[in-house]
């Protein structure tokens, strides 16, 4: 039972902090299990479809024709790394939401209903047994208390609700899933896949597995192949909290959604040690209200969840909620964009494609797994995301010399086939990569500014040579010309995969949450955004958050029924 004081309308069975990809899914799961659930979102309300103002606009209807201006960069110096004129309203104004970069770190944020699930990359891959056992085998970080067989059914469950298109390939390092029909590969991608099968059988090229619907699912979609996803999709062609999870949660009648409400801290009962609710500030009036529940899910996204834990100081938790291990805020990870290559191909000149596929192709990790014959200078590995296409006007205006009618002819016809691929490597957990709170500086709500101290380590850097070399040699063997390798060397945070600051482990002395995403020290608080990740793998992580969220919700509700929480 709740023990706090307040209005009856402020009592719920469960509170979910954050409405992004994991929070939205937690809300759906808890509501469907019969819990009266309050979702608290710090940003504004964004209704599915009606609040996607740019979704159907043509390029000429944008004032700057989607060209990022100096003023955009001034208002959104961080967010403009990924945002443009068509979707900048789904990213925060950096001037209003400052943080401190001890070293350069891009903290990409979307403060609105649905959070970054509106603008995410939609790539969906599963962690493998290699990923989950690596920490234990190598003595790095802490061992995941979970193995593939524990989480596999929850991946099935999440994929079936999300709607992931993709192709099963039978690879142990990239487990198969419950996929909708894959999108087609184009000529050059098929050619490269076949070339690799001959020359590099360990390097599979498969169509990206993405949360875009290749057929209608639960009244959503199918994808219309406009490739304008980050504006919000009026066809509900991809998975977001707004298009899928929140409507399902609302349909139960159990969901309340509170917008423009910033969670300041989780409140704890002195006697029982359990969380009683959250203290919330209205983003506009700064009025403070307390909401109470038996169960609390923190899904504010990794860095903000960390900040909430560190702000929740009490007698029992002097260093932040559930931080007896001292690990809260440590081990921040993101995926470095590393080396890659680009090439052009002379063949298939009489072939083209139709439609705009909102995804590329993927080369799963092939390093440091059984069958890899090369001795590597680093642990773990990387995968490539790539894309084949014909050169079109944005490319040809730079590739082709001259001007006039002959130039116009080139500008308006398809140029050579090109292929581009970039590696994204696993990032190891380092204690020194850390989120803390500033002791003096505060934001406009009087909450301490977040400090981020992050840099990629030696292991990530040691992969770059291989990333370039392997990309180049795949293109060479497939007959590409004008091959250029490159190294992106992006700033931390650029992959928007920040994770790891409330790591999962067996031992409360060295980890923050247990194998069911429960705070070791406060069992009625669950964390299922990226914070719980004990290692990063090299795959896109969102699907994993969804799988662990569903599993944690099932566990939490079972616990509640037993009277545990």
């Amino acid at each position, binding site marked *: 039972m709740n023990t706090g004081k307040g209005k009856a309308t402020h009592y719920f069975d469960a509170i979910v902090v954050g409405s992004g990809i994991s929070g939205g899914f937690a809300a759906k799961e808890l509501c469907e299990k019969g819990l009266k659930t309050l979702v608290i979102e710090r940003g504004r309300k964004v209704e599915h479809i009606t609040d996607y103002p740019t979704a159907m606009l043509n390029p000429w209807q944008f004032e700057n024709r989607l060209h990022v201006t100096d003023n955009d960069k001034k208002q959104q110096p961080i967010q403009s790394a990924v945002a443009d004129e068509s979707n900048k309203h789904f990213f925060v104004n950096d001037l209003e939401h400052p943080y401190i970069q001890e070293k350069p770190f891009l903290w990409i944020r979307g403060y609105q209903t649905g959070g970054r699930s509106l603008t995410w990359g939609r790539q969906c891959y599963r962690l493998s047994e290699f990923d989950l056992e690596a920490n234990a085998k190598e003595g790095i970080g802490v061992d995941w208390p979970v193995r593939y067989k524990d989480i596999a059914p929850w991946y099935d469950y999440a994929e079936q609700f999300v709607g992931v298109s993709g192709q099963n390939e039978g690879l142990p390092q990239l487990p198969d899933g419950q996929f909708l029909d894959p999108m087609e590969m184009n000529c050059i991608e098929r050619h490269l896949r076949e070339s690799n099968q001959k020359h590099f059988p360990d390097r599979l090229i498969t169509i990206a597995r993405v949360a875009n619907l290749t057929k209608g699912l639960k009244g959503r979609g199918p994808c219309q192949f406009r490739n304008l996803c980050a504006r919000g999709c009026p066809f509900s062609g991809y998975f977001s909290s707004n298009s899928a999870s929140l409507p399902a949660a609302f349909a139960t009648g159990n969901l309340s959604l509170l917008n423009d409400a910033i969670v300041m801290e989780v409140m704890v009962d002195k006697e029982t040690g359990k969380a009683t609710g959250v203290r919330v500030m209205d983003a506009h009036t700064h009025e403070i209200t307390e909401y109470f529940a038996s169960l609390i899910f923190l899904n504010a996204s990794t860095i903000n969840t960390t900040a909430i834990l560190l702000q929740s100081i009490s007698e029992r938790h002097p260093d932040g909620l559930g931080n007896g291990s001292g690990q809260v805020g440590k081990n921040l990870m993101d995926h470095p964009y590393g080396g890659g290559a680009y090439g052009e191909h002379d063949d298939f000149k009489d072939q083209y494609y139709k439609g705009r596929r909102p995804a590329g192709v993927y080369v799963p990790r092939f390093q440091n797994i059984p069958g890899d014959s090369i001795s590597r200078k680093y642990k773990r590995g990387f995968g490539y995301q790539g894309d084949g296409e014909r050169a079109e006007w*944005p490319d040809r205006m730079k590739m082709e010399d001259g001007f006039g009618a002959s130039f116009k002819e080139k500008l308006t016809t398809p140029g050579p086939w090109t292929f581009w691929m970039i590696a994204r490597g696993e990032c190891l957990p380092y204690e020194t990569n850390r989120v803390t709170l500033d002791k003096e500086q505060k934001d406009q709500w009087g909450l301490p500014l977040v400090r981020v101290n992050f840099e990629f380590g030696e292991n990530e850097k040691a992969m770059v040579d291989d990333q370039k070399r392997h990309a180049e040699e795949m293109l060479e063997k497939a007959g590409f010309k004008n091959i250029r390798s490159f190294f992106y060397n992006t700033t931390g945070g650029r992959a928007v995969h920040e994770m790891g600051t409330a790591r999962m482990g067996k031992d409360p002395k060295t980890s923050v949450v247990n194998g069911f995403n429960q705070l070791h020290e406060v069992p009625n608080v669950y964390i299922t955004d990226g914070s719980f990740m004990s290692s990063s793998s090299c795959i896109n992580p969102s699907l994993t958050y969804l799988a662990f969220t569903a599993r944690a919700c099932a566990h939490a509700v079972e616990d509640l029924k037993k009277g545990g929480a």
Partner: protein
Amino acid sequence: MKRRTLIKSALLAAFAGAAGYGGWQAYRIFKTPDVADLKNHLPLINALAQTIIPKTADSPGAGDVNAAAHIVRMVQLASDKKTQNSFVNGLADIANAAYSRYNKAFENCSPEQQAELLAEAQNSGKPWKGSLGKVQQKLLGNSFFTTLKELSCEAWCTSAEGMNQGLAYDYVPGSFQGCVPLAPGQKSWATK
């Protein structure tokens, strides 16, 4: 800048050339550019854009779709100071060249004369090859010709006419086919 001042600045350049060409060139690149004045040269800029992408049987040219409005806007709002200066200077240079050679405004020159003048700007604005070119771009910004060409293309390729008539615009494709034979005369897709 009015035409008279353009000519004046060219004369000034000649004098300065005698005094020390390098110093004057550096001044022209690093000074505070008068980008507000660009709005007074829209016909000239449209004529230049039209020379980059002329009207052809199937579609209008870049000047026809008023590429100048976008070009000026992007030079003003989305270019570094050096690129802005190069653009302002290049515009003055080509206007002056038209006057001194043909005694006409650039926009009143014949297409052949315009092409000749623009070819000269292209040659002088060609970036050096390889990594030197990258250093050059960093130090000096984009050349007049590069800015003019890329923004003309951007303006035309994102205009309703350019997308629908010059290119193939598929507003809502509805499906994706990875491999289809290229039809004779098929245009590029207007968006990726």
